């Protein structure tokens, strides 16, 4: 049993994280596919922003927040025999926020007041890390339904991979902030729209804010927050529950990275942070690595030989009675080219291997997935990644 298989067998939630462009989404989808085949049960992959081809391969096009089952026929066509069920869902940020508001607003009227506010759209689409929070919130909600044996989620691309870990706490902070109360107080006391009662403390703030933003805009903001604040209790309780789930023993994190300096540095920092914050760091996936044969001394020797003695070797090959090798000049050029290309790639492979050996703070399970010749855009690709993810 491979390390990753054991990990997936004992956990209910696996969060895939890492910097952008490292292949998080494919790795998460592949792990979910592998789990459904090897372990069985009902497995969901919740993905944030899949590439078009991957989304359509999973049958996810235009389905919004709804989970769909990946049809067993397509899995069989890709040569895998699922023991369980593989389900997939995408995150629709706007829809998820709307659902959240509808759930927590004190009544329907308030909910629609919020949903119609012109600031609301801006806020939910642009609010600092709103993606982060809503992704974790959806994860919690799906987990709470008890419908799946395993949920694999890939995280939104953030500037810092750690941001989303703090999102629930930040959200709770935001709503319980004394500052927010203080800001909306003049309007709460003033009662109806257009009146506000300023205290001695808040007066200088409003004088400046009026000058910068105009009082009408400020009033819009206040009204919006007043309504939003009515969701306070539900919201705070909820974000605490989300945080509890992330810390739960049944949840584990898998960090995905390539062996390039920048993403790897970010991954290391992330592993360290996860450990420091007492999250469960389950596995590290080194993705898109170059194959080991690029490191072989024999390969290096042969490459040098081919470059240095391309002429004589080409002349020898010309005697083989193969029309494609009849022109020694051309053959020599090709031999030099492949020798040179090998040396180029082997420098990169050496760098990767050096970076790999310097890794600190790593989890017990480390999976290595080589650069695959084609892009991962279909189930065959996911199956291929899975072969490496689940290798012993």
């Amino acid at each position: 049993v491979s390390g990753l298989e054991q990990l997936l067998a004992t956990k209910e939630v696996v969060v895939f994280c890492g910097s952008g462009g490292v292949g998080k989404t494919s790795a998460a989808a592949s792990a979910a596919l592998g789990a459904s085949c090897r372990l069985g049960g009902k497995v969901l992959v919740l993905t944030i922003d899949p590439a078009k081809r991957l989304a359509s391969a999973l049958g996810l096009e235009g389905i919004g927040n709804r989970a769909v089952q990946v049809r067993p026929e397509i899995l069989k066509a890709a040569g895998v025999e699922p023991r369980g069920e593989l389900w997939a869902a995408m995150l629709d940020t706007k829809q998820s926020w709307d659902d959240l508001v509808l759930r927590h607003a004190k009544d329907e009227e308030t909910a629609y007041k919020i949903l119609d506010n012109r600031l609301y759209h801006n806020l939910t689409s642009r609010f600092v890390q709103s993606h982060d929070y809503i992704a974790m919130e959806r994860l919690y909600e799906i987990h709470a339904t008890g419908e799946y044996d395993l949920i694999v989620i890939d995280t939104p691309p953030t500037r810092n991979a750690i941001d989303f870990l703090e999102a629930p706490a930040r959200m709770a902070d935001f709503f319980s902030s004394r500052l927010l109360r203080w800001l909306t107080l003049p309007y709460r006391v003033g009662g109806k729209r257009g009146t506000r009662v300023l205290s001695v403390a808040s007066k200088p703030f409003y004088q400046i804010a009026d000058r910068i933003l105009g009082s009408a805009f400020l009033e819009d903001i206040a009204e919006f927050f007043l309504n939003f604040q009515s969701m306070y209790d539900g919201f705070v309780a909820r974000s605490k529950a989300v945080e509890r789930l992330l810390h739960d023993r049944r949840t584990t994190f898998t960090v995905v990275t390539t062996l390039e300096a920048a993403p790897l540095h970010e991954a290391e920092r992330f592993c360290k942070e996860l450990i420091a914050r007492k999250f469960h760091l389950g596995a590290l996936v080194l993705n898109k690595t170059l194959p080991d044969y690029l490191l072989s001394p024999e390969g290096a020797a042969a490459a040098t030989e081919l470059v240095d003695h391309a002429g004589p070797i080409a002349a020898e090959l010309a005697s083989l009675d193969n029309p494609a090798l009849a022109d020694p000049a051309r053959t020599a050029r090709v031999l030099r080219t492949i020798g040179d290309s090998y040396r180029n790639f082997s420098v990169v492979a050496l760098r990767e291997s050096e970076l790999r050996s310097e890794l600190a703070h790593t989890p017990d399970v480390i999976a290595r997935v080589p650069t695959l010749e084609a892009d991962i855009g279909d189930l065959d690709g996911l199956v291929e990644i899975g072969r490496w993810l689940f290798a012993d």
Partner: protein
Amino acid sequence: VSAQQADLLDRRLLFFTGKGGVGKSTVAAATALLAARVGRRVLLVEVDAKGDIPAQFERAPVGFAPKEIHPGVLAMAMDTEQSLQEYLRLNLRVPVLGRVGPLARALDFVASAAPGVKEILTIGKICWEVRESIEGRADFDMVVVDAAATGHIVAQLGAPEGIRDLVDVGPVRAQTQWLSEILEDPAITAVNVVTTPEEMPVAETIELVQRIRTETSVPLGSVIVNRVLPELFTTADEETFAALTEPHVNERLRQRAGSGSTAVIDGARLAVALRRTRAQHLEELRNAVDLPLMYLPYLFVRDHGLRVTRMVADELGEELGL
């Protein structure tokens, strides 16, 4: 080389955006280095302050105040809080807020909660520096921005317009006017998108170019394709290579160059396959985007630091015909 490419360095304000991980900071740094080589003084603005920009010049992270990190290249890290304080001090004559504790916190709170405020503080500071340089009050004559990634850049570029939609009166509304004049002038500003010839970066580039066109009035510059793998063979060479992989030919090679010949052949096959999938994405990009494309080769030797910044600047200079 098209005219559009050649005058890239003649603009005063260059944004470099793109999907995370494509080498946007490297390309921004290399552009600044190249501009400095041809005698310009450049302010490099790092929007997502991660310290990446100074690292491209082997220097320690910088703060909000511009600092020369290389001859002819100054750098600063964007900080919206300090940008707000500077704005208040310069425009509204509000004293430094540091001492007014709660007031500063309240403003910062509104800045992070109200839509578009952080964006306008970022774009406002950048345009401010551009205007200072136009009016001869700055220590540089060009601003290069290592901008936000594809997910955020449209909100930033569109912030002045967005604010005008939300705020009906007040100095903020008035202030957005000159910002737009700078941002929307093709003689001053160009947004460049950095990508790699891979599926997701190309898809995001195509979508981003579309969005910048429809959602903002900011002029686009070029698309810079980073890490392009070399084409190993011509069609005729490819046949020869195919012959080398045949068993008895391969056996001959092994006798002559050792058992590692197989690894060399495998390596070449991988290189050809990688180049081929990437070529398809490039084709897709060329078909979907009508902007000038510039190509930067994959660098096998190093992957970051001043050495790479120099190499990329050389390549960029060649693409620009300098």
